[in-house]
């Protein structure tokens, strides 16, 4: 039997490492394509300023990339160390995209990053541009495979549970890859990275304009970031809507948590703009609603409706009762894999196996589960509503703020007036933490909303963890927090130093080449 404290500590440890890691990843995803855009202009126009831009932002990209890799490595090991039952149960499916991600990240992406950094003097312009594009493609494709693996946890497709091997097995790679959740989540996350990079470049460029330094680089970078950012923000919002639409079909409990929907309501449903969900009372306090809006947002129709937790909990009770015979049949099959009657009973109830596991937490012998234990297990099927509800609202609010910022940024920069708007330049600097916060909120919505499952409707979180001791988990968690905080501090120090130093003055190529890894040639690299 699992110690729930160990399960919670395992969850906390994974959450902490992911939240740290996810501070670095989106910037890598987006900045790589912005570098490709800058270098494309350099190759097309031949103007040295764009190479200077690509090299300067490339230096910041490398600081972020290195720390992103360092923080990401431990996460994949945690599946084995802290989530061993999960790894055994779904490893056949989950392992494939993770292995491809490893190949993408460590072979394709890292190889081309090396060529991008050290290849300025060794490759032709066209070759170097191709390398930069491949870095961008490689980093985003490695994110694709992680998100395909994650989407299997959110909405499992392309696999079935084999009662003989007691594991899930992959039966359709196509369904795994083209899962609707994977598609919308990959594009949403990737483009959120573009927004992050655009705010990053715009904010630092605004800082230079405020200080009246590196104006040629800053104004061009700001222009490119503003256009890149406004389109990307529109894309993020569109894909956020698509992701919600997919979740309404596949994860109704997550969507109900995002909307604080305790009771099923008839269409057209109002949207809870502000509410304070009370998990114990299963109700909201201090509600401010916008009529009709929820039906439109979730179903794209004013006549659409979705179930609240009252309906979902009733359904969960029915599924738990149907899942109990599946668990019993599985126990019989574990003793005798040739038991035909047990196999037939399992196949009749296999869809509800995961719900049978839910009640096993309270009744190890599921056949003796009481109605009270079944109701308790059904109550567990509700994710932590207040955290999901407010993370979602904060993410959306920050997304809309970034859209407004970029619309203004495009207006000012296209009129070539952005330097005159000092208040706006100051705002751009203050916007720097906003996309990072929005990204973290998005991750919380996705993963807290998946609870109480590691694999939705299939495997509960409580039985997925390894059987470590509490002391071990506390010790390793403290170690991760200290180490990763150190990484953040290192990133901030290196970034601030590189930003203060800025790009080299025109004609200072030799000194810069000696001081930075992005240009290896001794002199003349700024001259064209």
């Amino acid at each position, binding site marked *: 039997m699992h110690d729930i404290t160990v399960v919670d500590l395992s969850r906390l440890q994974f959450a902490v490492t992911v939240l740290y890691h996810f501070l670095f990843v989106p910037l890598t995803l987006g900045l790589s394509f912005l570098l490709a855009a800058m270098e494309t202009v350099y190759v097309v126009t031949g103007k040295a300023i764009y190479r200077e831009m690509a090299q300067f932002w490339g230096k910041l990209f490398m600081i972020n990339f290195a720390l992103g890799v360092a923080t990401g490595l431990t996460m994949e090991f945690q599946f084995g160390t802290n989530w061993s039952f999960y790894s055994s149960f779904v490893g056949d499916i989950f392992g494939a995209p993770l292995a491809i991600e490893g190949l993408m990240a460590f072979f394709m992406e890292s190889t081309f990053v090396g060529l991008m950094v050290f290849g300025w003097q060794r490759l032709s312009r066209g070759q170097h541009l191709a390398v930069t594009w491949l870095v961008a493609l490689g980093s985003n494709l490695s994110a694709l495979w992680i998100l395909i693996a994650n989407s299997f946890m959110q909405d499992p497709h392309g696999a079935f549970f084999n009662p003989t091997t007691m594991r899930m097995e992959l039966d359709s790679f196509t369904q795994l890859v083209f899962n609707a959740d994977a598609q*919308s989540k990959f594009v949403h996350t990737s483009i959120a990275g573009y927004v992050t990079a655009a705010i990053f470049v715009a904010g630092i460029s605004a800082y230079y304009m405020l200080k009246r330094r590196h104006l040629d680089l800053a104004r061009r970078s700001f222009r490119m970031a503003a256009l890149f950012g406004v389109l990307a923000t529109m894309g993020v919002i569109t894909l956020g809507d698509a992701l919600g639409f997919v979740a309404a079909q596949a994860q109704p409990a997550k969507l109900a948590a995002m909307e604080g929907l305790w009771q099923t309501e008839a269409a057209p449903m109002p949207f809870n703009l502000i509410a304070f969900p009370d998990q114990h009372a299963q109700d909201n306090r201090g509600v401010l609603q916008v009529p009709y809006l929820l039906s439109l947002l979730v179903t794209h129709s004013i006549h659409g409706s979705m179930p609240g937790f009252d309906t979902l909990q009733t359904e969960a009770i029915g599924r738990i009762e149907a899942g109990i015979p599946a668990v019993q049949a599985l126990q019989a099959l574990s003793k005798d894999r040739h038991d035909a009657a047990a196999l037939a009973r399992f196949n009749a109830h296999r869809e509800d196996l995961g719900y049978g596991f839910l009640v096993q937490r309270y009744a190890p012998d599921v056949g003796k589960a009481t109605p009270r234990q079944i109701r308790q297990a059904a109550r567990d099927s509700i994710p932590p509503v207040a955290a999901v509800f407010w993370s979602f609202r904060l993410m959306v609010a920050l997304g809309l703020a970034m859209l407004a910022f970029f619309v203004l940024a495009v207006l000012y920069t296209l009129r*070539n007036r952005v330097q005159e708007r000092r208040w706006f330049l100051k705002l751009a600097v203050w916007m720097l933490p906003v996309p990072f916060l929005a990204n973290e909120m998005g991750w919380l919505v996705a993963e807290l909303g998946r609870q109480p499952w590691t694999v939705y409707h299939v495997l509960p979180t409580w039985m997925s963890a390894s059987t470590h001791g509490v002391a071990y988990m506390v010790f390793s968690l403290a170690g991760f927090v200290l180490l990763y905080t150190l990484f953040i501090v290192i990133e901030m120090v290196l970034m601030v130093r590189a930003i203060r130093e800025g790009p080299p003055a025109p004609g200072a190529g030799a000194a810069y080449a000696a001081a930075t890894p992005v240009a290896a040639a001794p002199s003349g690299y700024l001259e064209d």
Partner: protein
Amino acid sequence: MKTFGYFLLFLLLAVIVIILAAVLGDLGAWYFAWLVGTVMIVLVAAAGAALLDAQEEQGSAGPRPRAGPGSGQG
């Protein structure tokens, strides 16, 4: 011959894009949208930079004299 080579290259690119659109469009509209959208976002950002260069060159050249009635541009 060079023009014909470019013609073949762009024709090949067009065929690849159409096949990708057909396959990915059926299997997953959002993957295809990402491919097209990312290229578009990058190109718009690049065009913005080129426009800034043009604005600066125009600005440094000073205001252009208005075309007279006989200049053929009016």
